[in-house]
């Protein structure tokens, strides 16, 4: 499947892009993170500690063990600081 993968805040800066298309057969978010980490050092560094990250699937917050089946958009970002 092909996913839109989005990065925000320092994650976006560290990876060097805010959005990319990713072809993957990853079953879960965690599997996708493993694939991304394996790509290049900047991904490995950005995803070194996923406890410091949050993920949204199709714009809904979820956890890293969530399956990707049927998902079109995955977003990774640090904890939010609104308000």
């Amino acid at each position: 499947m092909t996913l839109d993968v989005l990065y925000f805040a320092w994650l976006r800066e560290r990876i060097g892009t805010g959005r990319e298309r990713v072809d993957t057969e990853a079953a879960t978010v965690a599997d996708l993170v493993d694939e991304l980490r394996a790509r290049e050092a900047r991904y490995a560094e950005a995803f070194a500690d996923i406890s410091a990250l949050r993920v949204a699937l199709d714009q809904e917050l979820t956890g890293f063990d969530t399956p990707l089946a049927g998902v079109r958009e995955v977003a990774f970002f640090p904890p939010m600081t609104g308000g």
Partner: protein
Amino acid sequence: MVVRVQETAFSVGDEVETFARGAMGAGAIVSFTGVVRDEGGTLDAMQIEHYPGMTERAISKIVEQACGRWGLTDALVIHRHGHLLPGEVIMMVATASSHRSDAFAAADFLMDFLKSRAPFWKKEMSGQTSSWVAAKDEDEVALTRW
């Protein structure tokens, strides 16, 4: 119920006045306004990034929860993104209810959830350095109050 995510500045006074006029039957109106602090003169500017599309959805969901839980007659959230200077208004919420305790609780709830469940990220700029504002543990703890 109105949710606005915008780059342009807005007048808190105008928004509160309009909200209060529209909520006249309610009796109790609470507003919260968040302003960029200059941190003792060390902060030059703040940059607020957000997740277009998800931002509006996430805020609307939070507002719906508040309306249902406290029987609000009206609610308003305005949140800016982009480049802000010290002294500028970042965001505001307003709630209207028949009971003042409900209006207070709902506004407090909205702020707690906007803080750590709406996809905004703040970056502070001071001289040559800029740094992302870290989420505070206490903001996560605050959610357990509700």
